[in-house]
């Protein structure tokens, strides 16, 4: 028998979201990316800054499942390589196999709360090395760098959004609800920020911090800069919504029953902007990710030897890379492309699911 109880708002949204396959797939992909970023030291076979001077610009090694006799192996293997006759060319040895080992002990890494671990998802018996996505100019494993870079590139968006949206919501809400000189001040400030070209502002603010900083501090600086730039656009929209919400019956009713202004903003005005904010946040994440890429591409972002998708792309900007070592461009490029696309599809899906007009229709039953 069908359950006839009315659905809670959350369930209604989920039902509608579920129907959008592309958005659902994007959400799954992003979840996988973030999981990989969290587990990066474990999934990556090597530390991101470990050099191998015998293997510069090594192309990606392919996994083999069948041996020379054509027999199938459950455990894939790679073929060992050695430098070829020309420099930067490597020759596979078809007679030997390097079976992939799982849960191997390798380079140690730190996990907060667990101390030092040295377990890795996969690897090959040392001293041989496996580079599934090849190596870069310094012989560093591209896969390990990609995973380590994901920790920077994927979180910079979330943390940046958290900062700028906290600012945007509070300032926009205050501005719209209080009106008067607070409104004028906040809005002029927002317009000032919006009238300066974003990239210029980004670089100018970057100049405030010293050029040579430890990578962790650079990361924090980038996040802070992106957050401080990003709140203005949101604050303007939230202000508009607050202006409209301020005259709704339930806000007047809350006022009539003695709720304080701050309480009304926090409890009634902001929660009613939430469906817009969720969508806006989702579609703005790519801007933050690309902001980091942009800064790192200019060489003022995350510094080598630490990895980010931005400085990986920066390394891959020459024509030589495009013709001879395309994996250096493809690895961060594809990862970035998939991430940005997924956020956009996810945002679209959420917008359809949370569309206020559809919700209003649902409520008017």
């Amino acid at each position, binding site marked *: 028998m069908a359950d006839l109880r*009315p659905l*809670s*708002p959350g369930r209604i949204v989920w039902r509608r979201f579920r129907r959008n396959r592309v958005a659902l797939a994007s959400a799954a992909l992003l979840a996988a990316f973030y999981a990989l970023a969290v587990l990066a030291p474990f999934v990556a076979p090597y530390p991101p800054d470990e050099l191998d001077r015998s293997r510069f610009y090594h192309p990606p090694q392919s996994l083999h499942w069948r041996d020379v006799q054509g027999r199938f192996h459950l455990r894939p293997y790679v073929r060992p390589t050695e430098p070829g006759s020309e420099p930067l060319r490597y020759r596979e040895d078809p007679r030997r196999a390097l079976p992939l080992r799982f849960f191997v002990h390798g380079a140690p890494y730190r996990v907060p709360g667990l101390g030092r671990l040295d377990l890795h998802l996969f690897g090959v018996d040392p001293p041989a090395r496996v580079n599934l996505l090849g190596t870069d100019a310094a012989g560093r494993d591209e896969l390990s760098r990609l995973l380590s870079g994901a920790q920077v590139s994927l979180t910079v968006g979330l943390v940046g959004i958290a900062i700028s949206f906290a600012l945007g919501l509070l300032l926009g809400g205050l501005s719209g609800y209080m009106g008067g000189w607070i409104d004028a001040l906040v809005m002029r400030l927002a317009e000032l920020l919006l009238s300066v070209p974003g990239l210029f502002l980004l670089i100018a603010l970057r100049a405030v911090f010293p050029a040579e900083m430890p990578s962790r501090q650079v990361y924090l600086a980038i996040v802070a800069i992106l957050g401080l730039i990003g709140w203005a656009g949101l604050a303007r929209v939230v202000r508009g919504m607050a202006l409209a919400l301020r005259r*709704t*019956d*339930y806000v*007047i*009713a*809350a*006022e*009539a*029953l*003695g*709720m*304080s202004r701050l*309480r009304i903003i926090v*409890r*009634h005005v902001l*929660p*009613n902007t*939430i469906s817009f904010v969720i969508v806006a946040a989702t579609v703005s994440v790519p801007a933050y990710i690309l902001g980091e890429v942009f800064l790192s591409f200019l060489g003022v972002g995350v510094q080598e030897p630490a990895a980010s998708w931005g400085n990986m792309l920066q390394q891959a900007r020459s024509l030589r890379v495009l013709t001879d070592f395309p994996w250096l461009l493809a690895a961060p490029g594809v990862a970035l492309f998939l991430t940005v696309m997924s956020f956009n599809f996810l945002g679209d899906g959420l917008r359809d699911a949370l569309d206020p007009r559809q919700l209003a229709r*649902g*409520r008017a*039953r």
Partner: protein
Amino acid sequence: MSEPLLAVEDLRTHFVTDEGVVRAVDGVSFEVRSGETLALVGESGSGKTVTALSILRLVPEPPARVSGRLLFRGRDLRALAPEELRRVRGGGIAMVFQEPATSLDPVFPCGDQIAEVVRAHERASRREARARAIEMLRLAGIPDAERRAREYPHQLSGGLRQRVMIAMALVCRPSLLIADEPTTALDVTIQAQILERLDRLRAELGMAVLLITHDLGVVAGAADRVAVMYAGRIVEWGSVDAIFHRPRHPYTAGLLASLPRLEGRGAPLRVIPGQVPDAARPPAGCRFHPRCPAALEACRTQEPPRAALEAGGEAFCWRSGEIAAGTLDPVSGEEKVRG
């Protein structure tokens, strides 16, 4: 007589607009005594709701200009500091609005919204506030209050939503409830239940009610005294009995005459000709004179005098003496020879 709970003295709420100054409320005075129900009656646009909003100082100034005195327990609400005013709202005077559909925040369960009012006024833990909310929902006549408290406004019917609003308004035990057309958006059977419940709560909690309505049927059943508003002014007030049986103002008489009556079934309904005047350009003299069947020359030019009625009420009409004496029919305007 003891000091009234609320004394409104010469309240004027004007809105400055491009078309001129709109005098939505223009010199209204009345009193609400502890424990009574005073009905404020009038057509749409007569200024009832603006009066209510002005009392709680919910009319934004500017664009509005408010003057007059609003004495609640002897203290002028217009002189209170913001924090004192906040405590009076919901704690001393609470308000229920016309539209239960939009007066509740759609994104929170009902119980949370009531509990929030408790926490705005009293030091109460979440758990205590929640218990108070459920208790109040029960008092407001909501069956299965615990479950309803967890539901969202869109899951409730109009009648239930209005009960939630009433519970929300009364949870901090105000001594005056302003109910602005609390039953207008509901169907007739629910209307009766809500009004009955309000009256029961008024008696149980010992509060006064300022009932704003355009529905004389509601007034007859629920109020102790009535004040009739027309075009931003009070034209007559008195006890329900006096107003219904011995109206002294042609407007009141006309309103009563336009009620459908059982004995006159099939007969066309009487109406008061014309419309409520534009509040930006009210007529000179008595504001009702363009529609009044008994208007004299004096009504067109001079403000009507105050005439005390026998039962303690007042009418503002040049001819209330004649109406009282029975020599003028206030509905038709015909003069009758005594005898």
